[in-house]
């Protein structure tokens, strides 16, 4: 080896190339190792949570192993199961990405649920009331409308925090209720589908050109999943490769230093909030145009809240959000199978989800404590 290297080093540029190339694998390895470590920690948290919950299932006199097998088979054991998992994961990815952007920008956006509702409303209006047109244009318009509605809804909280100092956690939580009641009012009143014999609280169906295509026949998996993946790439690019992303992260990390650094902190934190709400809005759009095809009361089974756990479990990074959304989506689907097969209540899954998040956060707290000890030294 050394002989070969010496031979190359005799020609300087080649030598440099070889040296550079020989460094490359180590660099790649360290990057991959970093990801693997994070992944390992996540898997460990899941395992620990499953052990704890397993004992509880056993304590209730049920068969833990059979329950977990049902969970696995239900969520990823068949084409249909996988497709259902992806259907659940889609809104979780989108809202989770939004929450990651807000959290990275130091804004504690708990309003994913409300922003999701508003996005659903925006998409439904475009889908119902615009005339049929080219599907591509119609879907894009619905997407834009969903993004705008969700973004503006979040902008209220962002503005109140940035300019008036109102706590965004409180404001966004309250606005979740406003959004839910607004949708209830609209679908049982002004927007209700009155063509039915017995009117139910839901809007008329959106026109066909606004419907997102299904990806696999006979299943519910739709193009919204692809939108979510594209959004994840876009969020990664924004955060890692643009000055706006730099400013958002700087503001979240140390607002005082950001201000010193010439960053307009109120503007950037409002912007982070708008992007965050916009992504949740796209999730609403994808549910309306991809799954239900009309707007209804209670369109979200708590996606907005679950997405907070998804974002945290995913380490607030786009790739992490995708992986953790897939996991949480699988749990949602598998839980139903588990209840059917073994009679374990669905609520057990909430326990599992809660424990996973607690285990991951516990590690972060431990890490921080170690860091503080190191600093003291």
């Amino acid at each position, binding site marked *: 080896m050394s002989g070969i290297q010496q031979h190359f080093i005799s020609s300087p540029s080649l030598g440099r190339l070889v040296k550079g190339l020989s460094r490359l694998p180590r660099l790649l390895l360290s990057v991959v190792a970093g990801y693997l470590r994070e992944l390992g920690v996540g898997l460990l948290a899941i395992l620990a949570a499953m052990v704890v919950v397993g004992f509880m299932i056993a304590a209730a006199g049920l068969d833990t192993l059979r329950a977990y097998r049902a969970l696995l088979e239900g969520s990823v054991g068949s084409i249909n199961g996988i497709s259902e998992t992806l259907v659940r994961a889609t809104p979780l990815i989108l809202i989770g990405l939004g929450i990651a952007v807000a959290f990275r920008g130091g804004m504690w956006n708990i309003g994913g649920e409300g922003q999701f509702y508003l996005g659903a409303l925006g998409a439904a209006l475009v889908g119902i009331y615009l005339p049929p047109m080219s599907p591509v244009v119609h879907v894009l318009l619905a997407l834009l409308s969903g993004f705008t509605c969700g973004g503006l809804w979040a902008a209220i909280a962002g503005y109140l925090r940035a300019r008036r100092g109102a706590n965004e956690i409180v404001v966004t939580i309250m606005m979740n209720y406003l959004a839910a009641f607004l949708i209830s009012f609209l679908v049982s009143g002004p927007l209700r589908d009155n063509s039915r014999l017995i009117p139910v609280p839901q809007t008329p169906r959106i026109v066909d050109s606004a419907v997102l295509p299904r990806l696999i026949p006979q299943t519910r998996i739709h193009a919204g999943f692809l939108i979510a993946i594209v959004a994840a790439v876009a969020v990664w690019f924004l955060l890692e*490769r643009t*000055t706006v992303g*730099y400013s958002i992260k700087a503001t979240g990390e*140390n607002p005082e*230093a950001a201000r*010193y*650094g*010439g960053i307009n902190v109120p503007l950037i934190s409002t912007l982070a909030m708008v992007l965050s709400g916009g992504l949740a809005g796209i999730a609403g759009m994808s549910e309306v145009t991809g799954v239900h095809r009309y707007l209804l009361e209670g369109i979200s089974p708590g996606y907005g809240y679950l997405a907070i756990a998804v974002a945290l479990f995913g380490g607030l990074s786009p790739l992490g959000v995708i992986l953790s959304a897939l996991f949480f989506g699988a749990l949602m689907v598998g839980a139903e199978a588990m209840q059917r097969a073994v009679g374990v209540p669905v609520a057990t899954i909430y326990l599992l989800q809660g424990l996973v998040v607690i285990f991951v956060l516990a590690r972060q707290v431990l890490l921080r404590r170690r860091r503080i000890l*190191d*600093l003291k030294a």
Partner: protein
Amino acid sequence: MLQMCGITKHFPGVVANDSIDLEVEAREVHALLGENGAGKTTLMNILYGVYSPDRGEIIWKGKSLRLRNPRDAIEHGIGMVHQHFTLIPTLSVAENILLGQRTPHEPFFDASAAERIVRDLSQQLGVKIDPHVKVSRLDAGTQQWVEIIRALSRGAELLILDEPTSVLTPGEAERLFEAIKMLTGKGKSVIFVTHKLKETMALCQRVTVLRRGKVVGTVNACETTEHELARMMVGREISLHVERRPCTPGDVVLRVEEVSALGTRGQQALHRICLEVREGEILGIAGVAGNGQTELVGAITGLHPVTAGRIEIAGEDVTRCSPRQIIQRGVAYIPDRPWQTATLPDFTVAHNAILRMHWDAPFAQKGILRPTAIMQYANQLMTQYDIRASSSRVVARQLSGGNLQKLIVARELARQPRLIIAVNPTAGLDIGAREFIHKRLIEQRDKGCAILLVSADLDEIMDLSDRIAVMYMGRVVGHVTCDKATVEMLGLMMAGVV
């Protein structure tokens, strides 16, 4: 009275203390001298029971001592005043004094006992402290007295003072020295932890010098010189004062006219301040912290709103400009406590190096960051300014204090500024790093840069400044050229006497 023998303490990756021997006699003021990271504070924390040593023995009054926590140390009569205060700001002085102490009245608060302690001890020490006032309302100097009173009230016979003068004016430091002499007169011993040579010489009988976790030597203060101590501390020849040519001022770069501003609590922080800094000169602002320096610097950099007056940079009115507009006019700013106010701890060194110009070419084009250009620039800064980190990809929080400070200084000076505003640029740095930063500042001055230097460290002000302005209660109370300034005169002005 106290012997520490062969104390060794490892932290992950470093040997903080390597078989250290230290001997303190009764009635002695013993200086523990060393640069940052030399292991002074670690050693003292071992003596105070915060850490337990890996090896070594503490012998106190002839008996071997095993300390599990600070409570043990206090019970044996060892008291410590930390560099970063440990008082609870929302409690009163009296409440802080009794914190963690038992009284016969428990569980009720023994207010009269606390008041008596504060009154008696503050009288002995020759300071005035109201036991009922909240600690948050006291200035740093007074808080330090409260810390000392607390330690004494618990029966400390050996008092450890960790860098006690870093928060004091020269006058206050003088008072502290008087008090320390009084205490040793009463049979107490003091370990005085510092990296300041003058104080060591003025106050202490013996000096133990630490370098990189080892004892370099213990000497009698009367048999040594400042220069000798500096050499022991740093391990090489060092110039204590920067050399500089007389200045040749050019055009006015910064003009502050009749500027007034409110402080964060709504008080009048600046009263019609007037200043001028020219090309190629350093204007030093002396003053005790909290006399309007923060607001003045904030006003110039666009971070703090002004209520009246006018600020010009190179002839342009910038009074209402945003921080970014001021940066773009070529103003570099090294703020106070930069690890808090000017760094992004979880960003990489490279991304920290481009803060304040991250929107500009070559680091970004049309809003897209250019990683290669950023990395190259960061590597260049790291070599030029000798910033030690394993790579520009490590996060800033992994850098030591000195390296972080160098990174900030490098970032600000490398952009070829027209005006530099530096606030306490070497606070907490050791002599070596301090010398380095001073040289860079003088270099910039000689290149024609205008520099406004705000520092609580009078030596630094006197070493570097061509002219000195003294601030007191939001006004400029005096203005002198460097050749006419003396410490006594500046000290009196800073205290508002002249």
